[in-house]
């Protein structure tokens, strides 16, 4: 299953190779032309000989992760975050490091040894380390090089009622949805773009959108969801299971009201559930894409992800399917000429 493979692949910002290879393999015989650019973005073009508006589907391959920056004399590894990680979610988590995917554990002082003061204070990133079982600096550096990256070790599993848990649903859900959409046949030119370095500043998407210069761009993202106990309704952002979330405003984008209305009308027409993303914080690749060149019209379709940027995240598989349906319905409506800027 592609989503399982994608979430279990390693791909912190700047180190997206494994994800890129999976996508390339998945799509090689299903699109017309695939290539990469200098940054490492993967482009999958289809129907470029057809006329009609050129659509770019975007999903970012990278995930938040860690980079090893120092080995202590006793063999413990110091690290820095790649992307936004809350240090409070890191303690005691298993991780996998480097191309060999060596196991490690983010260690900390056991509760027995903590003072009352220490128990009250969350640990800072610089108090944490990764333990790979090495006894010395030399032993650690025999297996790990400084600059190697680490990701959470969570495996994908389907749980409960139509839900799934894994690491990196942000944004492997988007990669999987865009890949599935690219497997279908369309009547207009469509390019699937799998971008790099979103988590550290929407970098890949900036270059990708400049290259493709599409008429319409849709970013497919995994987004914040906090529909849990004690969260006021205006602090939830999205609700799990209520369908794809559409952006009105985030940290980088004010929604183009015309395209937002188009997406809502498309969802209504095709009987696809939808919701609005009700929070300003965070952003996605569309924030970079719409500012490229003379401006590119479009928007984002997001799958709600609980515990986003944390080791184990949860999505609704119904939201996944509905988001895929909405992406495909939007392309269908565009190719039938129902999008008029």
């Amino acid at each position: 299953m592609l989503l399982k493979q994608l979430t279990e692949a390693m791909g912190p910002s700047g180190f997206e190779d494994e994800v890129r290879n999976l996508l390339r393999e998945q799509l090689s015989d299903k699109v017309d032309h695939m290539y990469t650019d200098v940054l490492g973005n993967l482009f999958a073009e289809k129907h470029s000989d057809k006329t009609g508006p050129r659509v770019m589907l975007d999903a970012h391959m990278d995930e938040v992760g860690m980079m090893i920056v120092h080995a202590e004399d006793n063999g413990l590894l110091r690290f820095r975050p790649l992307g936004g990680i809350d240090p409070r979610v890191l303690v005691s988590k298993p991780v996998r490091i480097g191309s060999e995917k060596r196991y490690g554990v983010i260690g900390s002082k056991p509760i027995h040894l903590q003072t009352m003061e220490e128990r009250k204070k969350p640990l800072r990133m610089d108090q944490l380390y990764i333990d790979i079982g090495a006894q010395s600096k030399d032993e650690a550096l025999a297996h790990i090089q400084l600059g190697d990256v680490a990701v959470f070790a969570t495996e994908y599993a389907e749980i409960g009622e139509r839900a799934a848990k894994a690491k990196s649903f942000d944004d492997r859900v988007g990669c999987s949805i865009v890949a599935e959409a690219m497997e279908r046949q369309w009547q207009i030119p469509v390019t699937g773009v799998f971008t790099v370095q979103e988590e550290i500043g929407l970098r890949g998407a900036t270059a990708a959108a400049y290259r493709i210069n599409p008429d319409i761009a849709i970013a497919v993202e995994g987004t914040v969801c906090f529909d849990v106990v004690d969260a006021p309704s205006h602090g939830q952002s999205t609700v799990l299971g209520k369908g794809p979330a559409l952006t009105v405003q985030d940290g980088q984008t004010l929604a183009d009201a015309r395209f937002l209305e188009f997406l809502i009308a498309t969802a209504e027409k095709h009987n696809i559930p939808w919701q609005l993303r009700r929070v300003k914080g965070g952003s996605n690749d569309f924030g970079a894409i719409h500012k490229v060149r003379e401006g590119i019209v479009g928007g984002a379709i997001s799958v709600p992800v609980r515990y986003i940027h944390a080791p184990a995240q949860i999505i609704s598989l119904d939201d996944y399917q509905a988001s895929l349906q909405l992406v495909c319905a939007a392309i269908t409506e565009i190719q039938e000429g129902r999008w008029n800027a």
Partner: protein
Amino acid sequence: MERMKEFIRQLASQIIPSGYERNALPDLLRSLEDIADETHIDVLGNGIVKKAGHGPHVAISAHIDEPGVMVIHVEDNGYLRILSVGDLQPGRLIGRHVQFTGGSIGIVGVESEVRAENVTYDHLYVDLGCQTAAEANALTPIGTCGVALEPVVELEGDCLAGRALDNRAGCAAAIEAFRALAGEGRRVSLVLAAQSTVGARGAKTAAFALEPDVVFVIDAAPAGDMPKATRMELSLGQGPAIKILDGTIVIPLAMKDLLRKAADEMKINVQYEVWPNGKSDSGAYHLSQSGVLVGSISYPARYVGGISTVVNINDVQAVKDLVIAAAKAYQ
């Protein structure tokens, strides 16, 4: 001066939070069709007006958007929850009236248990007087934007005070400067820039599209002539401020000299703006493509970032005159 004052008041009466420019611009652009070759609204919502003619391609830019609020949730009992659009301190809104783009007016309330210094948007709500979510949703669905109501009034000494004077005063100067230069047969473009208060987004795409030889950016700069004000060597009524630098740009010295010389010849008294933390559209123009020459001329304004700002009409008038003179002086 009366004409300029009326023009500023007319522009400032419009509600144009960032992202809403497309809805507000058509009438204004239509009013320029008598002199322009072409007017259009681009993807980001910039109003772009072009006139072919002789000389280098001069662009004049003023952002037309203002900070505001956006409905992000509707409570079951009809209260609205809001976010800011751009930088608008939540504490300033408490107890004030807001007007949404659809016309609805509400009052901003705050949850009782929060202390004044800890107020965030999460604690605020807007009371439209509605009883139910359905009623409120029909008037102000999620995503609807609004502004704090603070109509423009006249103060003494040729000053105006009120909402959106930053930067409708600049728009008035830019439009008048465009008219003057286009009327002389010069090659000139006007950008009524969108989405400036959220980070110079419109200026970025306008710069790419226009590829001008030079851009003159008109905006407000904070005055520092109030009691115990944050130090800033700008005073109301003392003339245009030639920008030296802000947080987005260092103006090339040759441009500063060109502006000063133009001001000298016109006998316009100028001030100099050094605003290290300031945000403007200037940097977005400057860094477009292979780099674009930018001159920035500001009018001093008191209480920049507040709901009501104070500007002096004579400063705005002189900004317009200086931009026209500088555009003609540029070779």
